[in-house]
């Protein structure tokens, strides 16, 4: 046994290192109860409520994926709409080939990973701010290419085949569950990914790339994993959007607006916290519903709030909550206690 091992063991014997504070266990239980409640909603409320919630779930999923990319991977992309679009069109194409549309949603995630691999070769040549606009150009290229394919409906878009035979109430409920599953998968996926080895390397890369690389972390590999996971999540979200709206329009689905939503939700909610996108999506969604009668003004307010938060509150709303209460629903760091004091 080397000296350093001995020292580490003796040090470790004196402190208690845990993921979760006591509050996290309580809130974990509350979270589970909330999920069960949400899953039962189609039996309880009218379909207009669940239809609206589908939009919220999609926003949470998209924002979580952007948070993983930018908040943990340090890859600030303005081009995730590329994968939203590819995912949406995958569902359309697979449904045309006879695949049940709900089953096509997870397959859309796979398609997006296939497209994301070559995309990452190009995009990773750009750093920092230029990565942001570069990914945007790539998304535009995908849009212009899709528009040229007549089998996908060209510039006017296409309807989704294979769901017309279904009872509307059942269809609404199924779409709701698929959207809920998407949200659980993306948020849970982020949490599990960040708890593990990848998460540790990612946070090291985000904080200081050169030092992380010197410590033996394969920086490009870590970033590529996040990029591919994020593409898969956005693709599945695009699939849910299609299943929910029953048609796809290239200009709408490849719109940079999706990136705008993701960015503002994450920034307002709190970038770099798994909880941030959840809180941000609820705030965004409420704002959207409240200001629905005032046209585009909610986007003006959203942009202004986004600027203000980026400028004066870098941790977002969740950062504020955490500083005040120490609450962490999805602990990805560690708590170190010695003689009863939490640090």
């Amino acid at each position, binding site marked *: 046994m080397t000296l350093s091992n001995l020292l580490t063991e003796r040090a470790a014997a004196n402190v208690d290192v845990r993921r979760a504070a006591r509050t996290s266990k309580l809130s974990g239980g509350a979270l589970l109860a909330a999920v069960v409640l949400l899953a039962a909603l189609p039996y309880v409320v009218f379909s207009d409520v669940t239809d609206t919630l589908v939009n919220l779930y999609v926003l949470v999923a998209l924002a979580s994926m952007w948070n993983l990319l*930018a908040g943990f991977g340090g890859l*600030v992309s*303005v081009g995730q709409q590329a994968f939203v679009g590819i995912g949406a069109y995958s569902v359309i194409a697979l449904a045309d080939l006879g695949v049940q549309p709900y089953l096509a949603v997870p397959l859309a995630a796979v398609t997006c990973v296939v497209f994301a691999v070559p995309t990452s*070769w*190009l995009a990773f*040549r*750009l750093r*920092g*701010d*230029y990565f*942001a*606009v*570069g990914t*945007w*150009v*790539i998304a*535009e*290229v995908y849009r*212009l*290419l899709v*528009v*040229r394919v007549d089998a996908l409906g060209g510039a006017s878009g296409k309807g989704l085949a294979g769901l017309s035979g279904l009872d509307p109430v059942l269809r609404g409920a199924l779409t709701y569950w698929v959207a809920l599953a998407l949200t659980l998968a993306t948020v849970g996926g982020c949490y599990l990914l960040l708890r593990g080895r990848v998460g540790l390397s990612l946070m090291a890369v985000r904080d200081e790339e050169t030092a992380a690389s010197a410590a033996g972390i394969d920086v490009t590999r870590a970033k590529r994993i996040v990029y591919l996971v994020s593409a898969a999540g956005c693709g599945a979200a695009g699939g849910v959007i299609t299943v929910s709206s029953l048609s796809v329009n290239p200009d709408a689905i490849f719109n*940079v607006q999706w990136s*705008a939503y993701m*960015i*503002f939700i994450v*920034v307002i909610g709190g*970038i770099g916290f798994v909880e941030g996108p959840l809180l941000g999506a609820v705030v965004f969604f409420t704002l959207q519903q409240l200001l629905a009668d005032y*046209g*585009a*003004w909610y*986007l*003006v307010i*959203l*942009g*202004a709030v*986004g*600027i203000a938060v*980026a*400028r004066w509150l*870098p941790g977002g709303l969740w950062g504020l909550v955490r500083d005040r209460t120490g609450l962490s629903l999805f602990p990805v760091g560690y708590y170190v206690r010695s003689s009863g004091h939490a640090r």
Partner: protein
Amino acid sequence: MQWINAVVQGLLLGGLYALFATGLSLMFGVMRIVNLAHGDLAVVASFLALALISGTGLPLWVVIVVTVPLFAVLGYLTQRVLLQGSLSSGPLATLLVTFGLSIVLQNVLLEIFSADTRTLDGGAFATSSFQLAGSITVGWLPLVTFLLACAVLAGIQVFLSRTGLGRMLRASSDDRETANLVGADSRHVYGVATAIAFATVALAGLMFAMRSSFDPATGPSRLIFAFEAVVIGGLGSLWGTLLGGIVLGVTQSLGAQIDPAMTLLAGHLVFLAVLAFRPQGLLAGRTA
């Protein structure tokens, strides 16, 4: 002959792209800010000119003379009030602030002017042209725009290399803290750089508005053109930006010659090819 014509038209269009991209290149070169509201600022200038003309009845050239300095002042203020504070918080903050600005500008324009497509009426000058040789006709407006772009780039070049303020600007770009130690006020210098960037973007926006139609949502696609011109030419090089603009313009023009639907795609593909095979750009500038 029509291919030569396409090249000539693309060349002239490239001048406009270069004029438009200069501000983006300058702000990145000096402050390491990619201004995501760049395209929207050009559209704001177009709408402002439209409102001034319809409101006051002033001739177009007076409106241009008023709008460009006004934007320079706006640029200085934007830098000092919005951007300076976020500079210290890292690149993510500046990116978010400019992106937020872009969304705010687009939607305010949408609420005030509606989503209708507009053009700026440049009168007889905007449509008149002369015959160069055979079937090649050159419009006066594109030619003047091209010459204006070259003049502006040359002017900025002289400003950066010959004047005291320009030297301070370059010094702040190389090493802000050291420049501050020897007496440069980097905040003022950054303000000046942003003022120049806003003035050029307003000028380019007005030229764009005379050539082609615009609406509140045009900004982002314009930003992409400017960005492509900067990356194709090489980051941080003024003449590289001119070259990048020309390459982009000629490619789009040739793409349109093959199939009008190919115009944008051709430009994007050249950009991706440069990214894949020569990521430092055609004329690599000073290292970032």
